[in-house]
């Protein structure tokens, strides 16, 4: 049966068909839907872990116990999980273990553009790289055979265009592998120096064997066409190459990013006049070719940054470039914004008004950096806000302690904010930490986390009490505010910044997009009262605009949060409902 399926859903289907039994992941665009789709199969136990390192170690535990396991993450998540990955390379696996990692060339929803293939090379772990949904499904299954056949974890590398594109896949039945027996094998699984040193030669030998496998496996394939140009390519770049050149060039399509074949590449190179490597981001295949002594073109013409497309390939490599037209007017950009009714807005307005230095973190609230709020000074990686405020305050002392805050979401706090908070409690800086608790993991599309009280299926689960947790770490000043209440936010912020000890403010209100959140009637503006002072425009609400000197509310967007109302000095806002 053929189905049109999202790349990430195809990976989930591949897990199902391969008999995978345990999935533990942390959400991250563009990887999230793999786990959201996997949970739809009752045969697979799925969970959201607090972070990627935990997820990978859960999956490892399940593999060790004898069941096929999986974890998914985005490219930067693999940095968090790099610690277990590098040593799992040494231990190998019991039942098959596959790690899905999704890169984000073009940075559609990421803070950097790193190339995960580097992790595969560095950790000496095989990596498969599908170029559409059919391959995503096929490679997910193949990954388990490789994992068990070569005693290794296997990386399955997605990218935004493969993860978030739908294409046709062929479905088959689930295979039910028997649970592998668990044997105590101290020399294989206890990685103390005396054991690990004996595993390292195994890893090197495994790479040699995998390279041999890669020479003849159908995962790497030659498509001979015209022989003036031969292109070595992989992933979505392969699709752009075929789109532009069809059969007019010869193509070596690599489905395995690590290890790369040697003989296969040499043979291909010998059959074409000019050799070109087309790969997004880093020159990994290209450097491999150069190390083999081949003359090859690649990053001398193609960019290291951003996504490729058919026009880019055509322009750089001599195909037909399609041109468009435009009107003369400048088209104003439409950057993403905090939604109408977003609970983060009131809090960020308060930070902006108080001219705070704001050390930020990863989530929807990073949009607090955007005009007119502009209330963010730094965003680095998950959890960095809390660790960095401590360093910032240690460096600048009392002068910064009185005006600097760290802001971090509930899910990000659970991911890696707790350890930074422990450092503040232990090494004692007078820092003010604000946890933006919107009761969900927002940016990636509403995933539960350890503070929400629900699991991935929406069933009741353990619930971590943020206030109790902070108090247990030794914070005496822990308080909760409602970010819709601007006065309360302002008072709490001023008091905690002035306090002579570290404090935690929990800004608590559920995300306005959550289905269970009941919205108030939208507001409207009394045109007779409005004086057009634009005070309400300071919060950057997409529902409010000023037309002909008067504020106006878009009733289709407004959820009646009332934050704008609190800024109006002439009481011009009124509820549509109250007025009938």
């Amino acid at each position: 049966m053929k189905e049109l399926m999202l790349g990430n859903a195809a990976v989930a289907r591949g897990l199902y068909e391969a008999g995978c039994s345990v999935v533990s992941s942390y959400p991250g665009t563009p990887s999230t839907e793999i786990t959201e789709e996997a949970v739809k199969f009752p045969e697979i136990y799925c969970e959201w872990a607090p972070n990627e390192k935990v997820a990978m170690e859960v999956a490892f535990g399940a593999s060790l116990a004898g069941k096929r396991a999986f974890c998914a993450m985005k490219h930067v998540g693999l940095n968090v999980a790099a610690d277990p990955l590098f040593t799992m390379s040494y231990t190998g696996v019991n039942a098959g273990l596959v790690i899905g990692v999704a890169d984000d060339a073009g940075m559609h929803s990421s803070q950097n553009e790193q190339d995960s293939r580097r992790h595969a090379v560095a950790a000496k772990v095989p990596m498969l790289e599908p170029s559409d949904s059919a391959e995503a499904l096929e490679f997910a299954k193949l990954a388990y055979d490789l994992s068990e056949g070569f005693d290794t974890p296997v990386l399955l590398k997605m990218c935004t265009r493969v993860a978030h594109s739908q294409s046709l896949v062929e479905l088959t039945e689930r295979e039910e592998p028997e649970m592998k027996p668990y044997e105590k094998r101290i020399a294989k699984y206890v990685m103390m120096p005396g054991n690990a040193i004996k595993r390292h030669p195994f890893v090197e030998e495994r790479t040699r064997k995998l390279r041999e496998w890669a020479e003849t496996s159908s995962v790497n394939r030659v498509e001979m066409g015209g022989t003036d140009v031969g292109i070595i390519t992989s992933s979505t770049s392969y699709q752009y190459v075929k789109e532009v050149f069809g059969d007019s060039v010869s193509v070596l399509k690599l489905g395995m990013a690590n290890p790369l074949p040697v003989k296969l590449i040499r043979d291909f190179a010998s059959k074409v006049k000019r050799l070109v490597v087309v790969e997004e981001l880093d020159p990994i295949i290209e450097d491999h070719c150069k190390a083999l002594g081949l003359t090859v073109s690649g990053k001398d013409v193609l960019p290291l940054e951003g996504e490729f497309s058919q026009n880019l390939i055509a322009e750089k490599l001599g195909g037909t470039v399609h041109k468009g037209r435009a009107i003369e007017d400048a088209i104003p950009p439409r950057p993403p914004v905090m939604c109408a009714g977003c609970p983060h807005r009131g809090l960020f307005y308060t930070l902006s008004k108080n001219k705070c230095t704001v050390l930020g973190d990863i989530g929807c609230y990073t949009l607090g950096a955007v005009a007119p709020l502009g209330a963010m000074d730094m965003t680095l990686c998950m959890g960095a806000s809390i660790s960095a405020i401590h360093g910032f305050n240690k460096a600048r002392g009392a002068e910064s302690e009185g005006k600097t805050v760290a802001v971090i979401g509930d899910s990000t706090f659970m991911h890696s904010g707790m350890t930074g908070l422990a450092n503040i409690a232990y090494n004692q800086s007078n820092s003010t930490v604000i946890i933006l608790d919107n009761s969900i993991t927002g940016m990636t599309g509403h995933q539960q986390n350890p503070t929400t009280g629900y699991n991935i299926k929406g069933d009741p689960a353990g619930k971590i009490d943020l206030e109790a947790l902070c108090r247990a770490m030794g914070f005496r000043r822990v308080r909760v505010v409602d970010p819709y209440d601007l006065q309360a936010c302002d008072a709490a912020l001023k008091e905690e910044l002035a306090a002579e000890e570290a404090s935690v403010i929990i800004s608590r209100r559920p995300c306005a997009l959550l289905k269970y959140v009941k919205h108030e009637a939208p507001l409207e503006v009394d045109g007779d009262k409005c004086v057009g002072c634009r005070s309400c425009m300071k919060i950057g609400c997409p529902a409010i605009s000023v037309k002909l000197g008067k504020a106006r509310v878009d009733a289709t967007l407004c959820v009646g949060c009332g934050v704008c109302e609190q800024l109006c000095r002439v009481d011009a806002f009124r509820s549509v409902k109250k007025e009938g």
Partner: protein
Amino acid sequence: METKNIMIVGVGGQGSLLASKLLGHLLMEQGYDVKVSEVHGMSQRGGSVVTYVRYGEKVHSPVIDEGEADYIVSFELLEAARWLSYLKPDGQIVTSTQQIDPMPVITGAAAYPEGLVEKMRATGAKVDALDCLALAERAGSSKAVNIVLMGRLSHYFDLPEEAWQRSLEAMVPRKFLELNKRAFALGKEA
């Protein structure tokens, strides 16, 4: 046949994912190879979003590039203008006349250009503009703009009405089906 390209553009949260699902289903049922490329994550938060739908005998690239779109279906006027350069020389735009101010316009840092439909037509583009929001509200919900647009788009396709109806039935939740069928009909007849 040569691969055909449809772009669906709009503002994050306007419902372009359902429109692309519907098209994907419809075209697959016709026996075509299909690729649909979507945007998830941060851009969805009120930003400019685009979905690519490509179909033909064999589709390679999941994206559509400048000068390649046979159709641009737009939920919002400024977004139609933003993506105009992606239209083929003889391509067709189907757009709602709804205007949503982006943040730079709201803050006064930029102006929303006037007369966009005429200006787009002046470049030689074929523009079919209609008030899809009003039609959607007439059908019963402002959220049905996506299906009004699909109804309008169906004008330009040589496909039987039953094929569109089958895809609507397959892709729309049952409790919203009647509403969306009304929205489709209103878009088609407008």
